[in-house]
């Protein structure tokens, strides 16, 4: 078999008629998609039952490239769209795949409430520490002292610690990896397909064009070296201790994996108790 005939194993999962994609050289979003397709294979999930919901931004484009039922929604609102989709058809595996600005600035309210309810959603946040698509503005995740287009003298607001936020709000599963940790990331992504409830994975991902460059942190390869040198795997680490700084340690691993009653289970249980056979008959009629 010649090289030209070898198909990349992730091709069946992509809309190849949409290639080339819009992501920059050195960007990590494609790497996360690679890990995600690996998770689709490993988890043996039924592909026709997987829906991808994205918001707006560079990561928001993931929905458009994955050859699955895929929804490119409005800015910050992927989670409530996904909530409606999941509740209307509980047999779906609904994955929200979006960026840090989308999920935690404009969409922050929806994130905490979906985690509180413990809706059975899988939320993957590609965190590049910046608003990339609009040109590198400060995000709620941008570390202090980093330079951005809207903080030309450095950021002075504190940033969110996303795993701590997710755990406090009620997520059943919380993990963080970087795009250096492709296998661990794929394993976590595979795990959440078999975990009921609100699952959250943060993936640190380089933006060479708009974050690395302004902060003199080199290209995509330099970012991999940075992740390799600064990451420390600490599964089960208290999320209060995993906040990110500009140059400091990056604690990665699976931090939370707990059982909490899932939203729809709670609804069914509660309404069954309150209404008895009248509710059960209506459910069966559906």
């Amino acid at each position: 078999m010649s090289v030209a005939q070898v198909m990349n194993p992730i091709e069946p999962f992509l809309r190849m008629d949409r290639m080339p994609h819009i992501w920059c050289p050195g960007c990590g979003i494609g790497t996360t998609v690679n890990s995600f397709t690996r998770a689709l294979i490993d988890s043996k999930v039924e592909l026709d039952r997987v829906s991808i919901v994205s918001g707006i931004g560079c990561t928001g484009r993931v929905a458009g490239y994955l050859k699955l039922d895929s929804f490119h929604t409005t800015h910050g609102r992927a989670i409530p769209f996904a909530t409606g989709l999941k509740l209307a058809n509980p047999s779906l595996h609904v994955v929200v795949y979006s960026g840090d600005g989308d999920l935690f600035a404009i969409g922050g309210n929806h994130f905490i409430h979906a985690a509180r309810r413990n809706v059975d959603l899988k939320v993957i946040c590609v965190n590049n520490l910046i608003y990339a698509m609009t040109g590198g503005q400060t995000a709620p995740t941008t570390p202090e002292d980093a330079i951005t287009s809207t903080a030309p003298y450095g950021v002075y607001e504190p940033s969110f610690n996303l795993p701590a936020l997710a755990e406090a709000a009620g997520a059943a599963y919380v993990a963080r990896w970087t795009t250096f940790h492709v296998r661990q990331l794929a394993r976590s992504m595979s795990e959440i397909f078999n975990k009921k409830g609100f699952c959250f994975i943060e993936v640190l991902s380089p933006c060479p064009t708009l974050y690395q460059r302004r902060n003199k942190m080199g290209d995509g390869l330099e970012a991999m070296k940075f992740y390799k040198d600064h990451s420390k795997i600490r599964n089960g680490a208290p999320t209060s201790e995993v906040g990110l700084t500009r140059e400091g340690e990056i604690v990665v691993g699976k931090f939370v994996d707990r059982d909490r009653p899932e939203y729809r289970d709670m609804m069914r249980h509660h309404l069954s108790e309150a209404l008895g056979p009248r509710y059960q008959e209506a459910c069966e009629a559906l």
Partner: protein
Amino acid sequence: MHADPQGVLTGVHFIDGDHACCEGALAAGARFAAGYPITPSTEVVERFASRIPTVGGTFIQMEDELAASITILGAVWGGAKAFTVTSGPGFSLMMEHIGYAAMTETPCVFVDVQRGGPSTGLPTLPAQADMMQARWGSHGDYEIIALCPNSPQECFDLMIQAFNFAEEYRTPVMFMMDEVVGHMTEKVVIPPAEQIEVTPRRLTTRTPAEYRPFEPDEDLVPAMAHAGHGYRFHMTGLTHDERGYPVMTAPAQDKLVRRLQGKIRNAADRLALFEEEATADADAVVISYGITSRVAQRAIDMARAEGLKIGKFRLKTVWPFPDAHIRRLARTARALIVPELNCGQIAREVERASGGAAPVTPVTHAGGAVHRPEQIFQAIQEALR
């Protein structure tokens, strides 16, 4: 097809417009609602929350109106008929997803029980001042359908029509109530399910290999696929082609925007619902909608008692605006009188549609109460003097 009897509360009821609106949604097949509390609309979802568990479906109270207005869209793509309910300030927040629903051709219903504005305005008092917002509130060029009931009975009847239009044209439909219609209690007759016509979703009959999610039928409306059925389709709020893929060019924009507008404009005749009486030889025609039409009726009666020849034209469909009918009235009447609970939103449309053929007299009211019938009666008298 006929309504699913599970959702039809057949019988004679004494209920308010908000409750009747909810029963209309259930009869139309709505099995999903998301909402956020806001006066004077909340009773609609309160009733839905109480009724839906034994009908079979889901209600979720969301964290805000931004969430509620897109949760219903997710539910639609998951296979449900869905709606949300709000009032002015919440309607402002929902504009984002009215545009998104128009762009992605997601059939759904937005109920706005209008109260006085701008901003927080008059939470418990009526207005009809969101009529232009219903038409133009989201950014970009799009057409919309808006219906306007004037009684609890019509809250039930027209709500079914709203869902049917939404499904037929794959578009969000605005259901423009007002505080008085929402809170007035009257007799509402709910017929047996087999007497209620319900429009099913336009689902594709093609195989996944043949299916193009935004390829229109002859009436410019594409057939839909639900998530989870093997179509592996893409949809986006970006300008897109028939495959649903983003295309960032002027020709793609032109083709899509004109089709989205065309599918509703071409159907304007079918969409125009109205009540008309004694207009053929009328000297003046009173054009009204919603609660104001009930007050206007008294003014019309007063004018007729004085021997004046007054016609009545009540809009049930406000958008698309029934231009052809207004033009027809303008050609025969000496005056068109337009009372409404705002400072002239629909009067301006009447003026535009009549093209100068008849003078238009707005009878404005900033909201907070309904007109006094005498105010409309005087406007009729002055217009015919």
